[in-house]
């Protein structure tokens, strides 16, 4: 008997906003904190918490710096982050296919 697709969902990644952060970060070399905040419609505190969870899991790398006097935080995805995103997308597609067949 094949495993149900939900078994492949990762608790760290399977959250709408974290999936959004990983999706955007995987599409670019690096993305700025303010871009993620406005695109995902999150508060700074909320976004920081999601980023911290993903960084702790080794899925994102954070780069802090300054541009002039303004602090800037850049986020980039790691190889493990790309793999986790790909696995999550595959699990979601499998789930969708299973629902479609039911």
């Amino acid at each position, binding site marked *: 008997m094949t495993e149900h697709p939900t078994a492949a969902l990762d608790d760290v990644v399977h959250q709408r906003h974290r999936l959004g952060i990983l*999706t955007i970060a995987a599409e*670019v070399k690096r993305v700025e904190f303010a871009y993620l905040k406005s695109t995902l419609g999150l508060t700074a505190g909320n976004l920081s918490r999601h980023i911290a969870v993903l960084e702790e899991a080794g899925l994102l790398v954070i780069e802090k710096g300054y541009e002039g006097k303004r602090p800037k935080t*850049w986020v980039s995805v790691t190889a493990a982050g790309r793999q986790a995103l790909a696995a999550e997308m595959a699990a979601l597609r499998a789930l969708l296919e299973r629902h479609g067949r039911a």
Partner: protein
Amino acid sequence: MASDPGELLDELAGLRKRARDDRHGYWFPLLLMGVLTLVSLPLSQADPNPTDHLVDGGPGWWMNPLVHLRLKTEMVHPLGLALYWLVALLVGVLATVWWYRWRARRVGVETPTGTYVQVALFGLVAVLFGIPLSTSVILHYTLFYPTILVAAVVMAVLLGLALLCFRARRWRPLFVPLGLLLVSVALSLLQLPDVDVDLGMAGGAQFMAIALGLVTLAWIERSVLCSVIAVVFTTCVLIVNNLSMENDALGGAGGVLLLAATLVLGGLGALVAGRASS
């Protein structure tokens, strides 16, 4: 929150598209290379008395990299044009990298330019040294006569191996240059007498280098419009390099004007399309 997997996948696809659209900035390199091509026009004038200074034709001219940066016709300023293009191509690559970094600071998403730099510099080395060298080696040391069929089979094998190199997940700093080397050798087979496609080795190699850079930009930008412009430009380069332009009204510079117009119009079109989608 989108609870349905289908809705969630659609939402993520929308985010990916938005990030992709926001990071697109290829109109600048298109316009820049178009302007650099236009500026080369005064140096691209054909010599009305070509027999006055026939300098090519010695045994080693094929391996002189500057020869490939001229045009096919005898010219008034051959060395000036070759040196201009050598500098212009390097400036073009550096300015493109600077542009993407500057844009990233303004928009908040950065396009990866590492692959572009690798391919652009390798492409320049390939058209100036690699393709002429491998063409000479194939012509002089091949064990059997390279007919069109032989060339097609060898090319398919080399491009297949190159594809495997590009798709390698490990040791990429080793495999990507190896893949580019295989592509370079494969392209040199087009120069064989039976195939007879000029990639710019008789002059005009600078446009082949630009075409290679554009194809790479289209790949890293994942843009359909940029891909279309790259294909149109590459086709124009092959036409200009393989048709005689000596008798055009601009004294051989008509081909250069066509290529410059393609780049400038492509850049302006990309700029308008980008503004319309944002």
